[in-house]
């Protein structure tokens, strides 16, 4: 703990931090020069050694992912996943707003490491201002010779295109993103083949998250040993954390992955504690799809390992939202169920139908017509639709069921109490209206 010197957010708050000039004056684009003097394999090896795990949610090591590219390939594409859609996550937005050139530098180095010819930045359409910020940065980078033909006089060339999504959560899944990029419905693909073998336009493709790529220049410049010196061995490097809900200072903060959920809420340089009169009742620490913690679990470490010890799917996007003591968990359950019911792409039956059923049940419960057995139906549905039991094409249903399952399991007594307190006859009235 103690004072953490920001790495990814070091330029936040600096005047004109978005401009190439300021970025360069603060040491920017030095890492590209260094990388271009290394061989691509040396760059990959350094990132592997740093154990840079993907920041987009799954935590897969980036260097290993790059290693899956076939050796005999002739074309390689790089997709930058800027489709940040997981509620309540906004760290990629903060990075792109404050330091677009940091992302571009990471993209160029990764492009070089993987020998990509084209980089597509796939950005969610709701990012308006950010689209223009990044486009301006791309234009500046082209003009300065960091992008385009023969970058900085080397033999390496990279074209970079900014591509806007059209509003679909599932396009954050890498093969959904690829389909959308190709101008189709954002339906995730069956794997294998994995994108590294056959991705966008049937070419070998690497997909990496904005924050993951933003880490790359720092690894190259300061070395893998510096990176692994930050945080625990399984969760290396600087990390962005979001905190929102009824706290004093909702926002995006940077730290090593050795902080606890409680610290993220309480620390003065982070959430700054709960608003007056509000107490933590529940918290979704890694984006809603990872599942929920109770107020007794605030000692959970925000790293890649500890969330699993608390029945969560993972660290996710490391974006926490706090639920206070006056919020009815039935309302939270319904809110989460609705989101995934809306966002299921509809390809896999059990996800399409399962999320819709869970939303239906959660809605009825919130309207005061729940049954005790509904809780078991929710748990059973949740167990039978994800990628983990090997039933679905992508991980969306896992993300849909972890919050439902953890809310029901960890807040069961509250939910049961609410059901027992319902007006008599409500259930029968509602169910007979349905039938």
């Amino acid at each position, binding site marked *: 703990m103690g004072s953490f010197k920001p790495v990814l957010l070091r330029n936040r708050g600096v005047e004109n931090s978005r401009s190439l000039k300021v970025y360069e004056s603060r040491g920017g684009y030095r890492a590209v020069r260094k990388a271009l003097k290394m061989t691509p394999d040396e760059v990959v090896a350094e990132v592997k050694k740093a154990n840079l795990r993907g920041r987009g949610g799954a935590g897969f090591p980036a260097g290993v992912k790059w290693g899956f590219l076939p050796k005999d390939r002739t074309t390689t594409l790089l997709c930058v996943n800027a489709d*940040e*859609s*997981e*509620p*309540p*996550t*906004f760290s990629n*937005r903060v990075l792109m707003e404050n330091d677009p050139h940091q992302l571009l530098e990471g993209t160029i180095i990764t492009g070089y490491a993987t020998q990509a010819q084209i980089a597509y930045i796939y950005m*969610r*359409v*709701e*990012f*308006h201002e950010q689209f223009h910020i990044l486009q301006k940065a791309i234009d500046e980078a082209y003009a300065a010779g960091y992008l385009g033909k023969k970058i900085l006089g080397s033999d390496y060339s990279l074209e970079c295109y900014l*591509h*806007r*999504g*059209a*509003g*679909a959560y599932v396009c954050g899944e890498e093969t959904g993103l690829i389909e*959308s*990029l*190709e*101008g*189709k*419905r*954002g339906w995730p693909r069956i794997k294998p083949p994995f994108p590294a073998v056959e991705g966008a*336009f049937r070419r070998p493709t690497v997909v990496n998250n904005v924050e993951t790529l933003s880490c790359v220049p720092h690894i190259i410049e300061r070395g893998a040993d510096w990176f692994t010196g930050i945080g625990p061995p399984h969760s290396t490097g600087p990390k962005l954390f*979001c*905190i*929102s*809900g*009824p706290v004093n200072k*909702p*926002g*995006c903060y940077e730290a090593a992955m050795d902080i606890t959920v409680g610290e993220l809420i309480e620390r003065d340089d982070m959430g700054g504690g709960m608003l007056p009169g509000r107490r933590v009742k529940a918290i*979704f620490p890694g984006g*809603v799809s990872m599942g929920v913690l109770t107020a007794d679990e605030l000692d959970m470490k925000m790293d890649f390992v500890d969330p699993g010890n608390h029945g969560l799917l993972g660290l996710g996007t490391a*974006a926490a*939202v*706090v*639920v*206070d003591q006056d*919020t009815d968990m039935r*309302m*939270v359950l319904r*809110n*989460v169920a*609705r*989101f995934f019911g*809306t*966002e299921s*792409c509809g390809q896999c039956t059990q996800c399409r139908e399962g999320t819709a059923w869970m939303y239906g049940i959660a809605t009825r419960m919130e309207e005061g017509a729940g049954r005790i057995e509904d809780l078991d139906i929710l748990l059973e549905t949740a167990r039978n639709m994800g990628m983990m039991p090997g039933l679905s094409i992508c991980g969306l249903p896992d993300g849909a069921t972890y919050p439902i399952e953890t809310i029901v399991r960890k807040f069961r007594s509250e939910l049961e109490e609410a059901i027992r307190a319902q007006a008599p006859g409500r259930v029968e009235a509602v169910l007979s209206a349905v039938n």
Partner: protein
Amino acid sequence: MTAAENAAEIEALVAAHRPERESLIPILQDVQRKYGYLSEGTVTELARLTGVSANEIYGVATFYTRFRFTPPGEHTIRVCLGTACHVRGGRQVLGEFESQLGIKVGQTTNDGKFELERVYCLGCCALAPVGVLDDKVNARMAPKKVRHLLTKYGKRDCEKDAQTR
């Protein structure tokens, strides 16, 4: 195509993109930006120009929340009910918009001035709850801010009301 749309304009929008399948979504976005929505006539015209069937264009467009097939209100209000906004009172804000405008979510006012949508997470949760008017994000919304905001965007009976106060 309606009278407001024009085959030559649509052709120019399509011609600005590479003649590849992956240009479809950017083309649809440009067309919608210009006309506010994708009319049946426009989609037919796009099918002719791109060689992608109207059926498939609808297939793609309906997948994404951004595309719409009916004319929008002059101003679009999007109230966020993502988890962070929800726990900080987004629903009350939405309710206030509904009662001030006299419409339900998903509807447009009779004068075509405002339409009300509900969205789920816009990625600015630290500002929760938010209400987006056209493309401007209004942070930390509260029911009592709704009237003022609508007045600013030209809701007439609000103006009258405000003057008599």
